[in-house]
């Protein structure tokens, strides 16, 4: 609590000169833009993220506009075009955005419901389907694979990596995007695909219906709250980061997205994603849209 108070005081101190110099200037200052991760339903995205946007505005003491984008690709375009100041991104989209926008820096990592800051991607199959990956390892036989979406970490990036880890070269893999993790799980259960790639916690929900985990990745970093340091300023960035990491329980309880808390960003976990991405890059084009 004391850390949070110190961080908020620091933020006020940093922001005060601009607010106090001139009332007209202060009101004329353009609103910052926060772009949340696009979900299928814009209303749901809005509802999930409004408390977080309010909190960010309160911490920054500046007007903050929440801007919704229809999909990951549009969001990435907006970020690289400099239209977004604060955003939530999965680990892979964060890496992609960083390449075009070096000023995009991670403020913090969103914690999962179990408090972790990482998660695993898994390859799943129906219980009466393929029993182990070594059954097909080393054999070039057609393998159908359900994937979430191109920008998703547990999509082609982690899935192709996992196949390769088990001796399966993705050459003969026929992969298709299904959208969400649940859709991947249900498509595999319906036997529309032999395998599917999804986030472990979501795939385990379908264990009872007959979904089986055949392979799990090393932990990959969690979702990231990132900011454009060029727009925000380094001091404000640092103070906001300190305030987010020290958020007290009563503040967290008001949030929906972010209610499990924030953890410090760990750069080293992204090395694994980069390795996965580098490997999967060669095979992305063979995935049917």
């Amino acid at each position: 609590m004391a850390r949070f108070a110190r961080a908020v005081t620091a933020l006020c101190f940093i922001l005060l000169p601009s607010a106090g110099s001139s009332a007209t200037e202060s009101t004329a200052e353009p609103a910052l833009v926060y772009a949340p991760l696009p979900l299928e339903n814009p209303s749901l995205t809005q509802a999930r993220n409004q408390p977080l946007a309010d909190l960010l505005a309160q911490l920054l003491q500046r007007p903050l506009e929440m801007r919704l984008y229809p999909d990951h690709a549009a969001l990435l375009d907006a970020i690289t075009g400099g239209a977004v100041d604060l955003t939530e991104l999965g680990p892979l989209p964060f890496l992609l955005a960083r390449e075009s926008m070096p000023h995009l820096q991670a403020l913090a990592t969103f914690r999962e419901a179990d408090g972790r800051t990482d998660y695993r991607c898994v390859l799943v199959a129906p219980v009466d389907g393929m029993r182990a990956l070594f059954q097909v390892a080393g054999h070039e036989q057609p393998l159908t694979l359900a994937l979430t979406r191109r920008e998703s970490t547990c999509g082609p990036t982690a899935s192709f990596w996992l196949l390769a880890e088990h001796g399966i070269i993705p050459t003969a893999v026929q992969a298709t995007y299904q959208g969400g993790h649940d859709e991947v799980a249900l498509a595999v259960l319906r036997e529309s695909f032999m395998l599917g790639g999804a986030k472990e916690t979501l795939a385990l929900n379908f264990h009872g219906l007959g979904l089986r985990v055949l392979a799990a990745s090393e932990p990959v970093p969690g979702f990231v709250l990132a900011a454009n340091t060029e727009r925000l300023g380094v001091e404000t960035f640092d103070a906001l980061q300190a305030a987010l990491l020290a958020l007290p329980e009563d503040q967290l309880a008001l949030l929906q997205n972010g209610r499990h808390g924030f953890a410090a960003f760990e750069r080293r976990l992204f090395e694994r994603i980069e390795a996965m991405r580098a490997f999967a890059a060669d095979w992305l084009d063979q995935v049917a849209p």
Partner: protein
Amino acid sequence: MTKAPAVLRRRRWGWALASAWLLAALMALGLFWVEHAKSVQALLERNLSTLAISWQAIQALQRNTVVTYFEEYVEQPRTMALLQAAQDPAQIDAARLQLFRHLSPAYARMVERGLRQFHFHRPNGDSFLRFHHPARFGDNLLAVRASIRIANTELEPVFGFEVGRVVSGYRSLFPIIDEQGRHLGSVEFSLPFKALLEELQALMPRHAFQLLLHQQRQRDILFDEQQGLYAAWPASAAFLIEDPHRLRADSPPPLPAAIEPLIARLGERPALIERLRQGQPQAFRLRADHRHHYAVLAIPVRDPGDAEVGMLVAYVAEPGLSALDRALLVRVSGTWLALLVVALVLFFLLRALDEKLSERHRLKVIADTLGQGLYLTDAEHRIVTANPYAQDLLGYSDRDLVGQSPHELFHHHENKESAGMAVGGTEPPCPIIQKLRAGQEYRKETAFRRADGDCFEVLVVARPLMQNGSFAGAVTLFENIHERKQAEARLQLAASVFEHTHEGIVITDAQAKIIDVNAAFTRITGYPREDVLGRNPHLLNSGRHPKAFYQQMWQILQTQGRWSGEIWNRRQNGAEYAELLTISTVYDAAGQIQRYIAVFLDISAQKKHRQAIDAIAQTIAAEYNVESILATTCKHLGEALGADRALVYEIDFKQQLIIGLHEWLNPAHPNMPSSIGRYPLATFRSGVTYMRQQRTWLVSHANAIHPALSADGSAAILHEQMHIGSLFWYPFSVREDGYHLLVFNWLTTQPVPDENQLGFITSAAGLAELALNKIRMLEQHQQQLQQIAHFDTLTGLPNRVLLIDRLRQAMAQTSRRGERMAVVYLDLDGFKAVNDTHGHEVGDRLLVGVAKRLTGVLREGDLLARLGGDEFAVVFMDVPPLEASLPLLQQLLLAAAEPHHEQGLQLQVSASLGACLYPQTEPVDADQLLRQADQAMYQAKLTGKNRYHLFDDAYDRQLRERHEGRECIRHALARQEFVLYYQPKVDMRDGRVIGAEALIRWQHPERGVLPPGVFLPLIANDPLIVALGDWVIEAALAQVSAWRATGLVLPVSVNVDALQLAQADFIAKLSAALARYPQAHPSDLELEVLETSALEDIVAVTKTLRAVQALGLSLALDDFGTGYSSLSYLKRLPVETIKIDQSFVRDMLDDPDDLAILEGIISLAAAFRRQVLAEGVETAAHSKRLLQLGCSLGQGYAIARPMPADDISSWCATRRVGPA
């Protein structure tokens, strides 16, 4: 200045008329309002009826649609076959998955047509498959979903709107019955409210609709993850609205913007919300703004169980409401004008009427408030009126009194009663009437009679009323003086009590000057009354109490008004005395102290006795010596009574003696001779017998001899020879065989002991008796304890404690004398059956009989003991060599087997004997000796009972070694001497490593690395195997994590013992271990379960294995082929891999039988879709043949030997992939 009464009256009547006009105006308004409200309600009711009919109509429409779904998708062979399969618990999971696949396309089509939910339930109400939420199933819905309960119990289709765990919807449920009439469960089709809304909108296009769900009911049912889909209705949190943000595509569109202020206004009207909550059809009007009137219509939505789930609300702008309001305004204003004219006329007519009424009222108030009885009589002496007080005193109502003659009704003059009693006497004239007729006032005390006949004394004052000089009537006042008279009588009684009470009483004024004392005061203190009047009670001060004592007494008196306690005072003659004193303060009506009253009782004698009793009690409480107790009792009693001699005798009827126990002699008579001695009972027989029979005390004086003493001449001894003036005998602790006697002697004649003294003696004697009883009981108790501690209560034989003690003595004696002894442990065979069949009482008697017969076998110096239950031990002293001692054992067997006759039954048991000899080659103690005999007896039991067995030294050593081995393993585990070796498992087709089996090794500090075969048998079926198994899982997970950190992903399998698997906390410990190693994924660990272990309790093991799988671990069946290899068991066990026991693999190349078994197992595994892995692949030939048979996975020396964890990485790295 006050206003004129006429003005006031006019004003008052003006107000009255204004009120009346207002009332009439309001009544008119009320009438018109009621009529208006009826019209409004009729209009609303018409709207409400339309809504209700439309709602019913669209539900019927939807039902027809859903019936076609049921017929098309559920009542078809494939669906029914899968639902039939789902009835088998072994197939339920597979059936669910197949049904999901089979009907997924159908569900997609139904969703396109507006369906929201498609849900199968099992016959017991469990959710079987939710197509709209396939990940959730298995929860029982009977309690939360009435429709499912009805469909599965009444087996009829059910329709209705209902809330659910995911979302609400219009439900259509159909029971599913197959062709054989079996009930397979039910299926539910649910339409969203949006689907119904669209139909409603078509029928009622002007209306806006909203579905309100009861908040508590909906929240209780929902899955947690669905709670966010619902929000409180803005007007009241008692209702929820579903999906206000329209997160779901099938949610209804938002309400028109004009309705939102209407809902906000509803929120300001709690009464309307309450009407909605009552769940009845409701219609009311509501104004959105000053121009628009809305009709709000609500009908309850009920589920198939007739429980209310919420309200369907419709909002519609209704112009007819404004028209009705205008009509009401016109009618009300016209009526009010007409009423105003009428009111003005009435005002002038009525205002004069109030004057007469006010005058009459004033007189009545005076009479009613008078504190005396009053009645008025006319010239004929008949009562005209009486006030309420008079009615109350006399017990008559006003109606009873009016017109009556008071003289006849309630006068009770003395001369009237006496005349009435005289025979034929005429009633004398009323003295009151006589006085009044004479024109005089009557004032006198007399009596009146109440209606109930009771008489009470009154003071009567009556005056005549003269009109124009003649008697026109009278006014009579009377006062009840009955209570005053009674108070005077009470005072007289109090004075009498004051004078005659036993307690002294002193009354002082507020300054503590004595006002009065009673006679008892003079008797106790010696002061005459006249000597103390006007003086302070301080004159009685003994000087014993400090000043502070009196200060505190006065302080308590001042604050609490009362003081009570014991105090020492001094009599006029200077003697001190103790008194029990109570002083009370008397206050006057103003609360000021008026006087003090002190009441006291002389308690000097009681105090002296109490001190003596306390001294006796204090002494004997801690005393366990009879002599001291009696000395204390005699001394204190003698002193307190002022006796010259006090004695205690014991009267012993058995010995016919009077025995002096103790004597106290008054030091004032140093030359007085002692009376202690032993006297024949005959000397004082008469007195002693008197007290024994009467159980009472005896007093005798030299001048008044007690008859019981004069009868046998003992009086002459006591009074004449011993010169005793008075004696007092008191018997206590009276028993059949005698009693104790307290004796007090006085050399001079004394008065008979009074009640106080007798009570004192009784108490002291009672205390002494208690103390004597206590000592006697303690002595008895110690004896009993001694018996219980060393002897068996049932048989009276020595118990185990005494046996061990005697055994030690016997061993010492045997060693000293260079002899030999035998210890025999005997346990009865079949005794439990006797106990169970005939009860414990018969069993106990049998044990006593056996003990008796066994005692018969003993020689002099031998010992028989009962160890408990049906176990005995015999110690034979000085026995010959073993063979020559056997006849003794044979005799014991015969004695134990002798028939026992009990209540007409013949009972027979036998015995199993174990024997050992002493001394032995190694030193032993008594406990070991008994244990050896016990162990031998156990062998005798095992080898058939009714026999003896001699202790085997070698077998005993083996047992000890096993125990020591277990301890070594326990220490090795604590010292971390165990390690895991890993043997790779490969795909023999290409040599790829698929995992490794963890195998335990013991790095023994002295014996080097030991294989499991050396030490695991020592802890078979021992809890230690569980601890070791836990360690193996922990170590394997640590190793997998370490490998992962270096980039090596190698699943490891560990062996799990049956005992470990059966632990209740096995799954919890496994989960905790996985949580401790987050780097390791559950799929990195495989558990190997022995086929024989798995089959021990197939149901429990299957449950545990399923839980293991739920954690994400793989399972393998180890050493397959060595157990039953049952097909049905294999089908039920949820394992992924079957490991063929190496015994079949090793000899497969030479032994056709083993080869055949191997082929069978591989086929079996294929049939059940299990992986198969061959253990013991020792040569390339084995590998090749196994591949030919279709087994591609293997493990064995041909591939790699078990190796330390550090070697595995390099082995994997250098391994050349290719066929093994």
